[in-house]
């Protein structure tokens, strides 16, 4: 039979217990501070000195403007790098183990590759490709290698063969009715999707972990009230609430992210609470407690590392829901129409579906693949965390 794997390979390092100073900063935190400082300064500069309608980098000749969402996005990227990527590099042994487990699941590896493309595309794409622009004259251009009846296009960019307009590399995935390049639209949509993914998970993790641990350590009626509150949060019809807020106040992407993450942390909080309760019962935590560690330290050094892998899995499985909700709202045309998301593209192409299906299909398939990828990875992480499931395969 299969050899039993250690149940929690992400268990904290025992040597950490010997550290007793309270305010020693790890290299990760120093890196985080060093990276965040310029960002904060830039934000301050943007906020104080740059005019309302001016782009942030106008002074050096760039037209790219940064809004608060962008700042927050970059901040979450820093978090992601210093507390997820860097630790993987710092613990090569653990990373190798993770990778070995993860690699067994081939769809998940492919998914990781796809998400890598979406991530890099979303980060760098907008810098390389200019934003899709309206140009009615070149509407309904077909994707490269495909063609469309000449009658459907005002002005064919490529050649016209036998009365059919041929696609060109100028618009590899064709254009919308308004002449917006679909490929550029998809790349810009990647940025939006990544922003949603990173920011919501950061907010959900922050609220969920804090709420869960506080509830677990407070105990008594505080715990009871907090958990009832989680019950309410969990039974909230989020999508509907958002529609309502949208209806009353109107809402952009920022509001969307805020509302959806504000109602999504219930599960995480519940999980963290039960985990902290069981972790704090364990011997090594008791030992740390007796040696005088503060509650904060116990949480930071023991509870969080112990639940980290499960939380990452949970969050991975939450992201598809957010992406889907955004696409749905955009499709309904009640999202922020200025946000060039995939859902927006799909809704833009819906009326032309019969003769120009690429406008719907391209972003739809990209959205489908991205959601699929998150699900595959979440599933693979679940398997990697659960040695039992894999023992059965032997």
């Amino acid at each position, binding site marked *: 039979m299969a050899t039993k794997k250690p149940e929690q390979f992400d268990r904290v390092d025992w040597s950490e217990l010997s550290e007793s100073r309270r305010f020693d900063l790890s290299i990760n935190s120093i890196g985080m501070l060093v990276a965040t400082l310029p960002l904060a300064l830039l934000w301050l500069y943007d906020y104080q000195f740059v005019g309302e309608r001016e782009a942030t980098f106008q002074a050096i000749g760039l037209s790219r403007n940064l809004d608060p969402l962008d700042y927050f996005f970059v901040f979450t990227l820093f978090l992601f790098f210093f507390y997820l990527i860097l630790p993987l590099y710092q613990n090569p042994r653990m990373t190798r183990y993770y990778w070995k487990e993860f690699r067994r699941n081939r769809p998940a590896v492919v998914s990781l590759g796809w998400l890598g493309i979406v991530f890099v595309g979303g980060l760098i794409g907008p810098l390389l490709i200019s934003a899709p622009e309206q140009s009615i004259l070149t509407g309904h251009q077909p994707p490269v290698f495909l063609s469309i009846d000449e009658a459907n296009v005002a002005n064919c960019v490529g050649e016209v063969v036998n009365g059919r307009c041929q696609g060109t590399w100028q618009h590899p995935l064709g254009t919308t009715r308004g002449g917006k390049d679909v490929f550029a639209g998809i790349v810009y949509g990647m940025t939006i999707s990544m922003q949603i993914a990173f920011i919501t998970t950061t907010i959900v993790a922050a609220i969920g972990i804090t709420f869960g641990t506080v509830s677990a350590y407070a105990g008594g009626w505080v715990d009871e009230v907090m958990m009832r509150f989680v019950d309410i949060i969990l*039974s909230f019809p989020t*999508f509907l609430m958002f*529609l*309502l807020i949208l209806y*009353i106040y109107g809402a952009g992407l920022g509001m969307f992210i805020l509302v959806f993450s504000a109602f999504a942390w219930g599960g995480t909080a519940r999980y963290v609470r039960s985990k902290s309760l069981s972790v704090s019962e364990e011997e090594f935590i008791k030992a740390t407690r007796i040696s005088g560690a503060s509650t904060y330290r116990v949480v930071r050094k023991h509870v969080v590392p112990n639940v980290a892998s499960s939380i990452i899995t949970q969050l991975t499985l939450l992201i598809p829901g957010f992406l889907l909700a955004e696409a749905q709202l955009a*499709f*309904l045309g009640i999202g922020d129409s200025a946000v060039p998301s995939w859902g927006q593209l799909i809704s833009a192409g819906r009326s032309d579906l019969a003769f120009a299906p690429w406008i719907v299909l391209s972003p739809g398939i990209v959205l489908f693949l991205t959601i*699929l990828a998150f699900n*595959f990875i979440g599933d693979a992480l679940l398997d990697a965390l659960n040695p039992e499931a894999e023992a059965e*395969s032997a």
Partner: protein
Amino acid sequence: MGFGKYVGARVLWAVVVSLIITTITFLLLAAAPNPAIREAATQAALQGGDPSAAVERERELRGLNQPLYVRYMDFIRSIYTLDWGWSESRSQPVTEALLQALYYTAQYSIPWTVLTITLGPLVGVYSAANMYSWRDHVATGFAFFGYAIPNFFFGIILLLIFGVWFEVVPISYDTSAPVFSLQNVRQLILPVFVLVTGSIGATMRVSRNESAEFQNSDFMKTAKAKGVSPLRAYAYHVMRPTMVPLSTTLVGQLLALFIGSSLLVEVVFGIPGLGRLTFNALISQDTNLVLGSTLVFTFIAVVGNLLEDLVFTVLDPRINYDDR
């Protein structure tokens, strides 16, 4: 604490939750500028009248000049007396509009729910019984496809293929079709299929993973040693315990999908159900109708969660009422 007391406590809690949610809804709406008042002001200004006087008149007409708590009490009372006001966009009472919409929503929701609840666990357990065979891989692939493909996108594509190209299903929804007719089946088959594809995946995965544990359990060996046939063993000894963890996730998932996707699916397929009603109410700024449909969805969510809790306690004999 006995079972009856436990049920009582859960029901009470459900009432509290729905009260809290409706209160929040009320506060949100109370804090928002009312479009009808803005409209009155604009009208007055256009006709050379005094906008602020018109606003006052309008507020008085709608009872908005009363203190918040009075309006709140009125609001709560009207919820329980089912006096949900007049829908301006549809020129009929809100409750009537909701009931009409519910009629169409039920026509696809009931088959959808029934199919998900029956097929999901069956395919899941079957998949677990044949774990890592090609059948399992096909089922798993279908499950992942189902919950990764956005419902509205899938709906559009299917409508394009079967409605526009092959012309086997009607493109537009005909409200005059009798409920039990071939015509109705044809026009509802795609929305039901799209919704089932979306919801069955999660059910299948949960029942597959949970039943995997039970089919290798000692009690399955006991059953086999008793001479129980494999079919009976799966039906009784695997399916039954699988329903316990499944019941904790099933309702939640169905509800999330119901509230989110029913709207989209109704828009895509042109079904005049609850989702479309809510959507149109939002577009036409019909506050009473928005509030009414919010209440209906909230009520469905709360009742669903309550059912889930109760089903769980009925299914798991080990549950201790004192613990919860």
